[in-house]
């Protein structure tokens, strides 16, 4: 059902067309009536919070009210064009885990669909902050190895909140990677520079395009 326009609540007719643009007929006993629900008959969302959990995952909690005809299986939270994993649903909130994204640094679209469709409070015009989109800060979670050759090694890093559209590298103060590439969501491939690090060091991740 089209997402971009607000309709007057009430009935509408659903029309299905053939490839020839002829209208489909309705079988005996069937009818074409669809009802657009009034604003007080659908859920309302009021905002969201983002946290990076102790499980090393980004979790979003959407607050709202009247969320009654929706379950984990019927709610769709789509960020950056990708459906994310819904963890739980109650009448006042939805918890979502970020599972994939093309770029965390980009402003990603933030779409919310309950069983009824788009809720009240999504659009900026309604005072919502969902329509503006969302971005994520990359979080370095783990490395495939903590040791490597002084001639250079390939290291894979788990970086939550970043995808193939992000240009990230590993730092130990300086850029550690001669080659760096986000090969998929949350997976950074780094070919380290030749050289030695005299002792174990704590690494961080950096956007190569930032100052």
């Amino acid at each position, binding site marked *: *059902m*089209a*997402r*971009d*326009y*607000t*309709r*007057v*609540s*009430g009935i*509408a*007719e*659903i*029309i*299905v*067309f*053939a*490839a*020839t*643009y*002829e209208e*489909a*007929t*309705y*079988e005996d006993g*069937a009818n*074409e*009536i*669809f*009802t*657009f*629900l*009034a*604003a007080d008959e*659908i859920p309302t969302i009021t905002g969201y919070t983002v946290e990076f959990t102790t499980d090393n995952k980004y979790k979003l909690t959407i607050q709202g009210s009247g969320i009654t005809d929706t379950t984990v299986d019927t709610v*769709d939270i789509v960020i950056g064009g990708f459906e994310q994993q819904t963890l739980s649903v109650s009448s006042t909130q939805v918890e979502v885990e970020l599972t994939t994204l093309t770029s965390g640094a980009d402003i990603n679209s933030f*779409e919310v*669909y*309950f*069983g*009824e*469709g*788009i*809720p*009240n409070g*999504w*659009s900026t015009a309604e005072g919502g902050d969902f329509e503006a989109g969302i971005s994520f800060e990359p979080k370095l979670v783990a490395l495939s190895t903590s040791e490597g050759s002084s001639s250079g090694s390939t290291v894979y890093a788990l970086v939550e909140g970043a995808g193939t559209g992000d240009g990230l590298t590993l730092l130990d103060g300086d850029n550690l990677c001669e080659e760096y590439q986000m090969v998929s969501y949350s997976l950074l491939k780094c070919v380290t520079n030749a050289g030695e690090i005299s002792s174990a060091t704590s690494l961080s991740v950096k956007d190569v395009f930032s100052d």
Partner: protein
Amino acid sequence: MADDTFTVSIVPHDEDSKTRELNVVEIDATPGSPSLTVKYGGAYGGVYSLEVLSELRGALSTEGITFEAKIEVADFNPRQGSLYGGTLVTITGGHFSDTITDNPVQYEATYVGGSDKNCYVKAS
């Protein structure tokens, strides 16, 4: 049969419609049960006769064989949704295409603003 070339068409009973040639995608020359598989790209609703021409044998008998082109909606669910859109509606019926752009869906409603009457077909 395997060495033959066939032209298969559907001829409308309605004089206002056009004869449509179908694509022959497979010829099965199995003795006793030969067959032609054709790809049907859609046609205006109505009843059609079948016409099969063999390059080697001429017109084959298709007397009494008819084809009816139609599209029907049996039901859709849910029957209500948000005034802001975004409701996933499943429409059931017969003779839908498996190409999502072949069966556009629209609805007639009164708008507060805008003019989008289209539904976005996700799967078919």
